[in-house]
């Protein structure tokens, strides 16, 4: 298992480096898309700022607190998007037959398709999220304890892992339905937008559904409530704040199984 993971990471690095070199063949285009990317993700947070120019709090959460939610979610998602964001090309690769060429190479297919169309411009979202998060950490008036200091990077790591798992699961789904790229995007991109708002602005049943059906809430709301010293969105026990790593491991395991099942289905049907 460790051997395969090492092989996978190696293949990922090799292929991602090729895509970066390819992008650098068109420097102007790269600079423009990078700038555009920063601008669009920047506007994203601007909408929240705009809202706060009208109201003092959103569902009882202040601007720095919302910024904390936003920054965590955007950074975690940005990282996953940077690493695996192009996995939706799998459907295209299957349709045009180029996916077969990945199967005759001596490297794990997941790593090959994960690194496919690797785009450094996606770093923009990570940078922007990190800036907002940094500002929020300073100005949200957090009552810092060692536990909270430990929890923030843990949330980021677990969050990124959960989003990665969603990308992989979404890609696995494309083996079955090759036009599923849109379904996947509604889960991942839709998910990150949702998490940038405090849970109390949404209906209770909806929040319960999100908490238990999709583990996305663990990326943000529950541990964020703990860090900010606020009551939990649902009446969850105190230790729930520490569940993200566990949830992340479970998500990754499930995504791995889904991927293997998808790949097996492909290799037995050829479509």
């Amino acid at each position, binding site marked *: 298992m460790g051997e395969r993971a090492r092989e996978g990471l190696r293949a990922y690095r090799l292929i991602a480096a*090729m895509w970066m070199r*390819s992008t650098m063949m068109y420097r102007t285009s790269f600079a423009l898309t990078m700038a555009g990317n920063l601008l669009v993700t920047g506007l994203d947070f601007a909408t929240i700022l705009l809202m706060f120019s009208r109201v003092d709090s959103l569902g009882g959460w202040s601007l720095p607190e919302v910024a904390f939610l936003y920054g965590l979610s955007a950074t975690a998602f940005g990282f996953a998007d940077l690493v695996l964001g192009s996995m939706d090309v799998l459907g295209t690769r299957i349709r045009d037959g180029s996916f*077969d060429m990945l*199967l*005759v*190479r*001596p*490297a*794990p297919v997941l790593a090959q398709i994960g690194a496919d169309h690797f785009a450094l411009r996606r770093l923009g979202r990570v940078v922007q999220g990190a800036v907002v998060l940094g500002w929020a950490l300073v100005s949200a008036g957090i009552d810092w304890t060692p536990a909270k200091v430990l929890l923030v990077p843990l949330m980021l790591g677990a969050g990124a892992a959960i989003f990665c798992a969603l990308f992989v699961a979404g890609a696995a789904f494309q083996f079955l339905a090759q036009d599923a790229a849109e379904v996947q995007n509604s889960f991942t991109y839709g998910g990150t937008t949702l998490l940038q708002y405090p849970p109390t602005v949404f209906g209770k049943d909806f929040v319960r559904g999100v908490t238990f059906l999709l583990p996305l809430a663990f990326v943000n709301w529950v541990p964020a409530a703990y860090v900010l010293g606020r009551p939990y969105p649902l009446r969850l026990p105190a230790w729930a704040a520490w569940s993200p790593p566990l949830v992340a491991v479970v998500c990754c395991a499930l995504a791995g199984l889904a991927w293997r099942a998808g790949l097996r289905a492909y290799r*037995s049907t050829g479509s």
Partner: protein
Amino acid sequence: MSDTSDGTGRASHPAGEVFIEVDEVEKVFEVRRKTGFLKRERRQVRAVDALSFTVARGEMVGYIGPNGAGKSTTIKMLTGILTPSGGRLRVAGIDPARERTRLAHRIGVVFGQRTTLWWDLPLIDSYRLTHRMYRIPDARYRENLDRLVELLSLESLLDVPVRQLSLGQRMRGDIVAALLHDPDVLYLDEPTIGLDVISKAKVRDFLRELNTERGTTVLLTTHDLQDIEQLCSRVMVIDHGRLVYDGPLAGLHEVGESERTLVVDLERELPPIDMGASARVVKVEGPRQWLAFPASESAAPLVARIAAEYPLLDLSVREPDIETVIAAMLYPTGDTPRPPSERTTA
């Protein structure tokens, strides 16, 4: 070809060790079709049906058949892309479906209509990636690269972005990429499709050399009968997922009674050329006449006779296309299709 083929693929090859082993392999696809709003009809398609053959190390085999006959399904099973639904399959002693990555080090694959080269990067970059991904020892990589690039005359193109290469150059580039890691077997899917005459000749010369000098086993699918004629001592024909012929190309012509065409330009309009039983005129258009003669026979005596008896200006020989040969073999005129097992190619 000294072996005895009985047309079912169970030919014995005493010359070398068995390298590819296909035994009663089948591949069944389940096709779902929308028949109503939510109703779906399930249908089973047998793409490969009880297919059996062996290929010895160092053989060069042409694998042909009509579109949808099961050619690419077979290649995909041999390369580990697809898992067979039944039967036994071994390449270099490896079960392709189970040990895909281990097999990858032993095989080279070129799909003619799909490049694996990096479009925007100089050709050499694709080779560097292969070097590292296959963990080819530095000395061997250098040696192989120099040799292959020289043989396929790509020296001046290594620093050119792949998107600027012509189709023929790209195909040669792809062949280099597939051979850098010294594979034991090379699968080629339509290696000469869309290439000009010179590129075709280069590719064929190279493949012949690769096979004789390095002993690389080659399995190629093609629509170009000349590929087979110039390269393969053995040809396998697949139709409806079954092997219907396995033997030398000449035998295929005999079985199918296929014909080549001699296009003759005479000095002036003349009545149809009379060559007795050895050829018949199929078309006359002014001074130009078309003569059909058995593909299994040499054109030389015929040409000599025409040149001696008629005022000849120019002539050319046209090969029958592969579909015609196969169709002629499968459904001989005036003959009801016989089961393939009854055919002999002795």
